[in-house]
């Protein structure tokens, strides 16, 4: 039963939870979640990279799991829960321990990859409060960073994890300033 199909560009309207608050938005049906977030909701913290699932800079949490927003159709988040880097701060408005640790250790240079790393690491620490270096590497294996060489990023996740466990973790001076 063949039928003449129409390609629709007319906007569609969906409702979902964005960073803990109800959100409604209208957009063209073929837009990705990445495009909807950046272009229709003006949340530009989520970065636009390879667009093909290879770099991880567009990672966001959907129903608390990290996914690549460049490979998610906006329409498919209807009724679900989306968290972007703009929603990472704690209830009292202070930075998430991961954000603080990234800043303390210089785990961001140009910062382009940082939102994707932060959100992916956030979920890791929620399911594993004491990850090994290998756990961290595996969880972050889909995120590319062209600046830091990754070591500072792994150290920052370890530092944040320690602080979140309530351990008094100080940043050694040489990590920040180099060896004297």
């Amino acid at each position, binding site marked *: *039963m*063949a*039928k003449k*199909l*129409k*390609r*629709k*560009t007319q906007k*569609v309207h969906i409702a979902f939870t964005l960073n803990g608050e109800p959100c409604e938005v209208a957009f*063209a*049906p*073929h*837009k*990705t979640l990445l495009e909807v977030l950046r272009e229709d909701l003006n949340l530009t913290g989520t970065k636009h990279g390879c*667009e*093909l*699932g290879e770099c*991880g800079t567009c*990672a966001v949490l959907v129903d608390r*799991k*990290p*996914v*690549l927003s*460049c*490979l*998610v*159709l906006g*329409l*498919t988040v209807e009724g679900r829960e989306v968290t972007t880097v703009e929603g990472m701060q704690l209830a009292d408005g202070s930075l998430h321990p991961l954000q603080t640790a990234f800043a303390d250790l210089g785990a961001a240079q140009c910062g382009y990859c940082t939102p994707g790393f932060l959100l*992916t690491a956030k979920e890791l620490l929620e399911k594993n409060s004491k990850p090994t270096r290998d756990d961290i590497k*595996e*969880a972050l*294996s*889909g*995120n590319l960073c062209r600046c830091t060489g990754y070591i500072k990023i792994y150290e920052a996740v370890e530092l944040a994890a320690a602080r979140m466990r309530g351990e008094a973790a100080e940043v050694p001076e040489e990590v920040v300033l180099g060896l004297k």
Partner: protein
Amino acid sequence: MRAFEFHPAHQISDAIRSLDEANGNARICAGGTDLLSRLKDDVDNPERLVCIRTLPDLRYIRNDKDGVRIGALTTLSTIEEDAYVQKQLPLLHQALQVTAAPQIRNQATMGGSICQRPRCWYLRGPFDCLRKGGKECFAVYGENKYHAILGGHLCYIVHPSDSATALVALNASVKIHGSKGEKTVPIEKFFVGPEVNILKENILEDDEIITEVFIPHPAPGCRGAFNKSRERQSYDFALASAAVQCRMSRGVCEDVRVVLGGVAPIPWRSREAEAVVRGKKLSAATIREASEAALRNAKPLTQNDYKVDLTKLLLTKSFQQVSI
């Protein structure tokens, strides 16, 4: 990405009707991780997407007396974390652990992972190649480092799916629903090489959808191993992989399935290697002989003869792991 009509399906019958009436102009969208990149690259241009995420009841891992049933929408990360899979199907677990990156495994589904299209850069690029209905396979004289060394016939794609390689080794079957009803097909018969169909990698018709993958319980004494080589260690498609599922009894290999990935247009079952080891102890000499036999008919292209030795090595490693 070009515009399309978006059809969320709420029942399997809706999905089938929606596919059927589009007459080949619709694509199923599950996790979207493969489909959206094809649409962005403009190498596929359907008028309609039938979204099956909205189908209820296709997300499950169920254990019954015969085996384990995995709903088509179950994500790869859910399967990877499943206790039964980890314990009883190590081969599948190992394959999933090295499939793409964790974010993609959170999105990618069982059905999508076996129906994903090949990654051949001519297929995925602006080339009118055989698999897109054109007249020539550019890989034959072009850049063919990642292409097939076995089972090529006019077209030299390799099947990209690690889970497919594992599932053929585990003797799985797929349940398919379509306008003509429901059927269950052994996964080995599901995949077809270019000599059968140069345009697609499996037998699915335009109006058909996979609803379930079934894996029989391995017999007592079964062991499995999956080894994959990739150019980049963080995540990457297989340069080659080797899956061995073997029933051992007093050190003797009673029954075995050997499947190679990344080297052929379909998950490549090597009956030659199986014949060498069946009924024998897995000694170093037998393993060597089996690995040689598996690659005896390999026909490398101009840039991929490295795959021959690499695959032998991976197969040797998998045999060694099941023998201890």
